[in-house]
């Protein structure tokens, strides 16, 4: 056996050629990422660092700024109103997110199954509420919920039935959950639909050979295959629910005695900073909220990882 080889290149130049290519590729990579990193640094990391710095001080209307160490955090941990707000958004999360994700999943499966005749219209229709700014959406729903002159109430008057007080103490959280579900089901549906499109089609062929029905295919093949996407939606929802702000703030004008300034932690931080001028304490509250969100997200991650491993 003879081997024909090209005259061997000196080893050093071959290695040098490899590292210089790799180096120029690496440089190109860094150059591409730089604009994002710059924006990330300026608009995310620096304000975060500044807020952290602020949370260590205390500025009083009389007496100026003093270094307060962790006093703000200690105060926040003992603050009943903050705790109430966190529990409230946790309740909101448990109430709203499962319903929304199930609806989004069903919608995505329905579109993907190809059994829907007007799937394109359906897709756009469910997604349009996401394109409506949350301020507009909340104002619109606030009007719909109106007790005296909103359409539901008027309908109730017309048929002689009593309409529930959507903006009252008992139903407020549910009414907000409705608004948020209306806004974000389309968004989650698109993510899940994209994940469904990425499933290799030979799985379906194999299932068809085995005689599986559409429902079977959906439950046993599609849903397990899009687990990562479902998990992504879940994490987004955790962050979104715990940071709930726009809806309570706008509905507060319509029901000021139901929604107080500590209704959600974000609203509390906002009121502290801009009404009470307690910017430092507001920064501490925001950081604590961030910690809570991280803990909840990681616990979900932990639980799902353990399940996938077992």
């Amino acid at each position: 056996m003879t081997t024909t080889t090209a005259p061997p290149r000196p080893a050093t130049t071959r290695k040098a050629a490899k590292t210089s290519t790799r180096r120029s590729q690496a440089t190109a990579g860094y150059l591409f990422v730089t604009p994002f990193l710059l924006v990330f640094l300026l608009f995310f990391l620096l304000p975060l660092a500044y807020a952290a710095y602020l949370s260590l001080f205390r500025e009083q209307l009389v007496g100026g700024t003093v270094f307060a160490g962790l006093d703000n955090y200690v105060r926040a941990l003992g603050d009943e109103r903050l705790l109430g707000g966190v529990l409230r958004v946790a309740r909101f999360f448990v109430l709203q997110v499962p319903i929304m994700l199930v609806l989004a999943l069903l919608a995505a499966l329905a579109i993907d199954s190809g059994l829907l005749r007007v799937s394109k219209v359906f897709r756009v229709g469910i997604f349009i509420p996401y394109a409506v700014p949350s301020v507009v959406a909340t104002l619109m729903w606030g009007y719909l919920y109106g007790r005296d002159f909103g359409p539901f109430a008027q309908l109730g008057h017309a048929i002689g039935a009593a309409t529930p007080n959507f903006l009252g103490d008992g139903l407020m959280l549910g009414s907000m959950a409705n608004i948020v579900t209306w806004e974000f089901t389309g968004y989650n549906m698109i993510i899940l639909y994209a994940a469904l499109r990425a499933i290799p089609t030979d799985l379906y062929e194999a299932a068809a050979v085995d005689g599986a029905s559409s429902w079977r295919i959906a439950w046993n093949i599609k849903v397990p295959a899009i687990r990562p996407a479902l998990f992504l939606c879940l994490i987004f929802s955790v962050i979104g629910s715990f940071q709930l702000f726009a809806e309570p703030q706008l509905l507060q004008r319509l029901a000021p005695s139901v929604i107080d300034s500590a209704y959600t932690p974000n609203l509390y931080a906002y009121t502290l900073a801009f009404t009470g001028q307690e910017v430092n304490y507001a920064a501490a509250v925001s950081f604590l909220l961030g910690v809570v969100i991280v803990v909840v997200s990681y616990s979900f991650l932990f639980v799902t990882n353990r399940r996938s491993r077992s």
Partner: protein
Amino acid sequence: MKRPFLPGFRRRALMAAAGMLSASLVLAACGGSSGSSTATPDKVSQADVDKAMKTPTDLTFWTWVPNIKKEVAVFEKKYPAIHVKIVNAGQGEPQYTKLRTALKAGSGAPDLAQIEFQYIPTFSLTKSLEDLRPYGAEKHANTFVDWTWNQVKGSNGEIWAYPQDTGPMGMLYRKDIFDKYGIKPPKTWDEFAAASKKLHAADPNVYMTNLAANQNGVWMGLLWQAGAKPFENTGADSVKVSVNDATSKKVGDYWEGLIKGGSVSTDPDFTDAWYQGLARGKYATWLTAAWGPVFLSGSAKGTSGKWRAAPLPQWDAAKPASGNWGGSTTAVIKGTKNPIAAAKFAEFLNTDAETTKMFTTEQFFFPATKSLLADPAFTNQKPAFYGGQQVNQVFADVSDTVDLSFQWPPFLDQAVNDWDETVGKSFADKGDVGGALDTWQQRVTDYAKNQGFKVSQ
């Protein structure tokens, strides 16, 4: 002694290219202040004033007054070198929030801003307003109605702003509803309560009035009328807070009775439902300020001719009194690069005969100047919306009865927020107003102490 925010603050100012100069101006204002002086500061010389008014200058003026460009045009015609840029940064609280944010950031604050009377202490405490005495403000002590001048004066004699319009409180009532149920316009609060019961018994769908659960302004106006002094600025770092004193409790108990009796509703005001209520005759009266009549004629057009005006019902018919709700001033923001031009603009806008008259004819403001309140052209107006009644005369008379010594706290935003959540909520829940007043007192004093004030009760 204040320690200025340094590292993060400076970095931000550097990044905002134009912010450096105003940032250091604000730092100089907020830091190392030697405390407010009691002596009158030196006046700016007439020569300096003349020079400033001839130098091309751009002033930024934050205001929500509609169509104020007409009055501004009069000023610009007289002083062509000065150009005023009008910016609507929001109405009331949203503007104050933006103003505070801009002041804290050290850039973006205007030269002048519209500030309601009740918010002046909030901004003067944080040293955000220019004292107008060096620019000749003192000579206007008798131009304005006395209680308004007291409202713009600081605790050391500073003059923080020029009054623009006022809101002495009266009562607008639906004559047709009163006539239908045989009710005479009540002159005392006892008569008002009796009329409420009578009206509610006759028609449960109509309420004698609406005491909005989110409207601290009306509550303070009613306290003002009753002679209460819930807040007093006793010094640069001390306040007296007594929002649950005997007078407040008396007013609170009175309204608690009416609300629990069901004759008074507590819907949030300035919302869609409330406008609908006014238009459809849900409320028989509206306890409101002197800017109310014009406002009502614009928002409840369908009820034209059915309303009349009267003074508020009195606690003591022999000693008529009233309070004030709203009304604004024009103040010069500290740190402005053009204090002379700004101060002179504020002065002109609110004291010149032509512009002040335009405020009453174009924007239908209720004037703050003594001369206009006595001007027959103003007081003799007979709007058809009020069946030809001389509404302005009614409110001009009321203006004379507004108590002189009511004061506002230097942290009104927080106090109002706490009121909404305690007293306002007790209205909406038909609960114990007295207890809510005690809670409000607790929350305000806690906040004040937290902010470093010495609080007396």
